[in-house]
């Protein structure tokens, strides 16, 4: 075990996968000598060559053309490569929307299921640096409405490492979304992760903490805040709270959530993305449809405000905070 931050675990996963399969190529901005804006591509071009100038080169530093290089990566994937595309900020994927939504997501279906499109889009999202309206959004809900995509949203260094490897191995288009607010988060990460220990994207939910009276489904920054809030609510109320990190949003591990809800009968969902039309609404729909009157109380949603993300620390006003989560938990508990 070595203690490492999320960004280092991310870099380690890329390094491990690049070494494993020479069909994997990296595509993105500043991923040459600079190693990418988040330094998650450090050293890769030196090791695996420049795909612009060299036959066999596997790291392609692209001009500032999210549409151009995302479409390019789709084309390379159609020809047997397995591109890993970094969009510097998830917000900038607006410029790659056609490539993700119309090309990658629909390719296999229109190709009669004969050809897959194994491409991983890495989308660093979320608040944390006070970067304002175009550098801080949480985007998973934009894409959850698109059949053909898988969406992976891990929170911890170990999970980023394991699930990035799993995403790259998956034969379908995967949006690998990590949260910038957690990028300096530290954890002990295994020194080696054997190929057979790389998880599947199915049944991926993790019980972060067991409890009997309320199920909290949360991910990324909201998950971290919910863990603190739950401790305090437990101390204040004597109730126990179960926390589930889905880790993968599509395919969502419904069974893990249903199992927990059959025990607790109460649900709270939380994410940073705006609540309206957000993925949390879908989670609640699944729960209500499955559990119906088995639920002891109405589900509660504590998500981002339906507003633009402001500059600087003001961003704290628009994403769930500890007090909001504590109030939501008490409401869900019927207190």
């Amino acid at each position, binding site marked *: 075990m070595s203690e490492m931050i999320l960004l280092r675990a991310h870099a380690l996963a890329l390094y491990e996968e690049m070494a494993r399969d020479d069909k994997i190529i990296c595509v993105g901005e500043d991923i040459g000598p600079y190693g990418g804006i988040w330094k998650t591509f450090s050293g890769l071009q030196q090791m695996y060559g420049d*795909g*612009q100038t060299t*036959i*066999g080169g596997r790291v392609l530093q*692209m*001009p500032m*053309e999210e*549409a*151009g*290089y*995302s*479409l*390019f*990566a*789709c*084309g*390379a*994937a*159609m*020809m*047997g*490569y397995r591109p890993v595309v970094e969009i510097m900020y998830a917000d900038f994927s607006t410029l790659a929307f*056609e*490539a993700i939504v*119309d*090309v990658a997501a*629909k*390719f*296999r*279906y*229109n*190709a*009669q*299921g*004969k*050809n*897959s499109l194994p491409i991983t889009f890495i989308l660093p999202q979320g608040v944390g640096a006070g970067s304002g309206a175009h550098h801080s959004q949480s985007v998973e809900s934009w894409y959850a409405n698109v*059949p*053909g995509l*898988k969406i992976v949203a891990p929170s911890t260094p170990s999970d980023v490492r394991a699930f990035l490897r799993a995403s790259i191995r*998956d*034969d*379908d288009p995967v949006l690998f979304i990590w949260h910038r607010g957690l990028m300096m988060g530290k954890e002990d990460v295994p020194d080696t992760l054997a190929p057979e220990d790389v998880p599947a*994207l*199915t049944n991926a939910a993790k019980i972060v903490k067991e409890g009997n009276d309320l199920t909290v489904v949360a991910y990324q920054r909201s998950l971290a805040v919910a863990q603190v809030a739950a401790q305090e609510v437990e101390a204040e109320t004597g109730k126990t709270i179960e926390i589930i990190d889905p880790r993968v949003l*599509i*395919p*969502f591990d419904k069974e893990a959530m249903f199992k927990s809800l059959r025990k607790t009968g109460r649900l709270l969902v939380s994410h940073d993305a705006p609540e309206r039309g957000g993925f949390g609404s879908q989670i609640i729909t699944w729960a209500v449809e499955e559990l119906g009157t088995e639920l002891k109380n109405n589900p509660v949603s504590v998500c981002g405000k339906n507003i633009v993300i402001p500059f600087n620390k003001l961003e704290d006003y628009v994403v769930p905070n500890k007090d909001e989560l504590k109030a939501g938990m008490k409401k869900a508990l019927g207190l």
Partner: protein
Amino acid sequence: MDFTKQQMLDMYSELARSRVLGELMKEYIASGKISGAIHPCLGQEAITSGIISAAKITGLNIYNTGTHRGQTLMAYKVGFSPFIGEILGRTSGANDGISGEYHLTDIEKGLIPATGGLGGTWGILDGVAWAIKQQGRTNDTVVLAPYGDGAASEGPTFEALNIAMLYKLPILFFIENNGWAMSTPVSKQWPTDNLADRAKGFGMQAVTVDGNDICAVTEAVINGFKLAQECIPNMVEVKTTRWEAHFLGDPQEMYRDTSYLQHLDEIDPLLIHEKKLKDLGYADDEYIKEIKAEMAKEIEDAFDYNLKQPLPTRESVLDYNRLYSNNAGGEI
């Protein structure tokens, strides 16, 4: 470029087949047997037929997408009957009658799906071209990226041209300029005389030729393929006239002077090539009649055959294993 007698005759066959396909598509769209936004290729036969002729003459493998009025090229790639099956929405279609025209895909045969908005297509083909270069296949394989004049104004078009030059890709960008993007004339799309001028800013070679003359189109494409094989991205613009309205039933008199309809004989690619064949003593009226009848039979038979084939079932449309690779079995 001098073409042999056989090559010239083969070009005529391609033109004649494309004409019948266009005429019958128009007929079946009008009768409601073909649905969706399909835009007949009538009058623009020299373009797709010229590309097909160039591919046949050079013997190269071509990776390409379709485009707005490029049905003949897609049909050439997947086979005319499977293409017709697809646009009729039958299970005999190249993609089971489920994908439809623009999205027709057959990677093994080199047909890459186009995007519905069209403008993203060149970017995809850049990636295909990069793969071909990396795989050392330019000795016998190149990429052809066809567009209409409308798609050539989309933003990702310019990003694709840029990447092609930066990465020195084996790709020929091909613009079919018929003067109109739906109701918008080229004069409202682009500020210079030729759309090929787009290439200049990227340091890319480009030519503009007469898109109604199959010999000119074929020659330009053969030259473009040669450059592409040397990993010199280049552009060919062919100028033609849109015979039909944008889609069947489009009241184009609202925005377009339709006096061109009185002079179609002067720009008809079949008549232009017929005259050449006759002047060269390669063909007479009887030969031309025979070829037209032969092609009409082939295409009519394909329509008749496919119309008898079943429609896709609800189960085949809702097959989630077609959507996801991991035998999802159901919705995920």
